[in-house]
């Protein structure tokens, strides 16, 4: 990986590569436009902090402070902590958010003294209030690119990934019981046993539970399986209700990475007692192209 792959107009990252590499490229690209232009003597620690900021930030932009102790959004009362910034260049934002060069944005900063009027900086922020404009909270900032606004104005906007972020995936991996690569061999409705029926009464949020039989091919986290007992059962909701629409749905033959939670009950598959897991959250199933990222995050946790 090298900095020559920095995002440039007409070359929107290395789109043919995996998201893993794209993220790395984006990260380094942002570092090139922001972090590497920070204090001239950027230590490894500073670089690490910068990388963390890039990951955490949902809205990243280069801007010039136009007012201190002020707010450009009626819903955000001005305070010593709020400043108004003119956007010179947007580096990263979710697709739904309208933010472009020339807009004003209200920023709640950590240290107001660090932001005199006229100062330009790269702002790493999280969204706060969305109205006629945007108010954000500063996660961190760095010195502006050396070329100033004229240079940054040409930067293309990188949309925050619509899929699961590294942070969210890290959290899923940390809290799950089992991570496996496998293939679905069968899907059938789960008949709720009478003893459990009070937990599954009728509501518009009823899950329409299904069971997918999963042939485990390799285990990335959790107990290993024996060769002749390599099947587990994964329960998932088929319902299109708002509660479950984002939960993974499975079909026979589907392969991928399954991030699973242990269910209290067991079941029988092929004559032996098989473990039962649930797969409920967006990101609990990932395509095989995500394997390098999952392995890396598991290794680094």
């Amino acid at each position, binding site marked *: 990986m090298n900095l020559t792959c920095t995002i440039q107009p007409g070359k929107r990252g290395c789109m043919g590569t995996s998201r893993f590499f794209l993220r790395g490229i984006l990260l380094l690209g942002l570092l090139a436009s922001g972090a590497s232009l920070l204090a001239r003597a950027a230590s490894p620690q500073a670089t690490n902090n910068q990388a963390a900021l890039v990951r955490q930030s949902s809205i990243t932009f280069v801007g010039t402070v136009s007012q201190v102790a002020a707010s450009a959004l009626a819903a955000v009362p001005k305070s010593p902590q709020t400043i108004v910034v003119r956007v010179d260049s947007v580096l990263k934002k*979710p697709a739904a958010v309208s933010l472009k060069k020339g807009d004003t944005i209200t920023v709640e900063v950590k240290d107001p003294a660090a932001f005199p009027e006229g100062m330009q900086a790269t702002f790493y922020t999280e969204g706060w209030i*969305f*109205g006629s404009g945007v108010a954000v909270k500063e996660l961190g900032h760095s010195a502006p690119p050396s070329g100033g606004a004229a240079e940054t104005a040409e930067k293309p906007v990188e949309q925050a990934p619509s899929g699961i972020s590294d942070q969210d995936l890290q959290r899923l991996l940390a809290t799950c019981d089992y991570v496996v690569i496998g293939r679905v061999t069968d899907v059938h409705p789960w008949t709720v046993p009478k003893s459990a029926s009070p937990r599954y009464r009728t509501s518009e949020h009823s899950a329409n539970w299904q069971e997918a039989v999963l042939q485990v091919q390799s285990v990335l986290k959790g107990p290993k399986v024996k060769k002749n007992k390599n099947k587990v059962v994964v329960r998932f909701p088929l319902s299109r209700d708002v509660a479950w629409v984002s939960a993974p749905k499975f079909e026979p033959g589907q392969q991928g990475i399954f991030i699973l939670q242990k269910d209290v009950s067991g079941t029988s598959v092929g004559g032996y007692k098989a473990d039962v897991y649930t797969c409920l959250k967006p990101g609990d199933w990932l395509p095989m192209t995500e394997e390098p990222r999952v392995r890396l995050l598991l290794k680094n946790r």
Partner: protein
Amino acid sequence: MRALPGYPTRALALTVLVVTAGTVFGRGQSPTAVRAGVAAPAHAKVVDLIPASLSGEINQDSEPFLAVQVANPQVMVASAFTPNPISGTGNAPVYVSEDAGNTWVLNAITPVQRMTCDITHAMSIGENHPRGDLHAGTLACAASITLDESESDDVSSSAVMRVQSSRTNVDQPFVRALAFSNVDHIYIGLNDLGQSSGRTATVDVSLDGGASYKSYSIESRKTMGQDGPSVRPAVAPDNTVYAAFFGWRKFNGSMATSDVVVVRDDTGATGSHPFQALKDPSDKLPGRLVVKRVSIPWSNAPTLGQERIGSTLSIAVDPNNSSTVYVGWADRGSKGDIYTLHVRRSTDRGLTWSKSDLPHTTISNATNIALAVANNGTAGFLFQQLSGGRWVTHVVQSRDAFATIQDTIHATVPADRPLGQFLPYLGDYDYLLAVGNEFRGVFCANNTPDRANFPQGVTYQRAADFNTRTLTDGSGNPVAISIDPFYFSIPVMP
């Protein structure tokens, strides 16, 4: 980014009203209903809640709700199935207005991660917070469905709402609140599926601003194992509290045989055995049976257009005469109707009810009923009807138990677009409130910026070009249509 002004075509609106009234009430109803329709009032307001800075969003922002700060009705909170716009792990947001609904911002303060899967709320003034107290009932849907009963003292702050009570296996929390002696009394109707008796219709009551809650089952009869999802309280300033629910007696997976039951408490549920003031003469048990054993279709799939059906219910009490109470619901219609609305009224504190539907309130192929009663006794009736391939949102008002009515259409939008992302398509409910001399409410609809779709006019905060009927992302790029929440207000009939 542009905010388009309202579309002042009152003459057209009047024409649409009269014509549409013919369509609406012509379905199996007396033609006299058409003559009963009168012109739309001036100054109706409709506002798309999506802020300009989220012009690029394409979510299905369905199932709206609304709360108004009684002491300062400029302040309102609305909600919908709107996800946190920037993070899968951030808090689910609410919409906040501080200018009586003209503009709205999105503020991520609910205790639920990313997006609620049910949310209702009410603002009361017992604790004298000028931009609170917002009391919310939210469902978080992850491995299990969890109810949070929570509070905010200031809905414009970034502080996440304080969770005051929490439990799992609960459905459709529905919040009402009213201040008594400087303390907020909160009543949350819900279907407590954890009730082992099967008598699941429940009201959670807090008499101390949410610091503590007590849970009361309000079903006194045998059920098929549970009651229907909707449990709706209504509170009058004289401490009278009503609640309506569906007492499910049979259920085969696609049809419920249900009573529509109303309970009452005369002391704000402060006694040890609340909600037992109203007994049915047939069995002397608490809970008046307004209608018995009606058939209610249950379909958790697109059935009424792209909408599911199964549990729409509303109750409203006259704030100045708690003896007068209205209840409305939907059940299986006759003559091929999929889902038919009904409204009944009691003028003796729920002891007796109109024997049949009030005039002009039997509405075929409709859902999302919401009732409210204004200070002058005018009843408001919000519903959404599938008619001629369109979802038509009506607000009907009447001073005489719907013998004569004023019907105002706030939206008439194509029902086949956009394609549903999940269920519910528009919502399992919408909401109507009486505030001074206005009815205020929320509904969801296709957000195509087409003036013909909004006969009372409409204001979009998000970027929209009404000439080309396209949405844009604020930078000129087109954005697909989706379901948006809309706020409306309309003067109460004098």
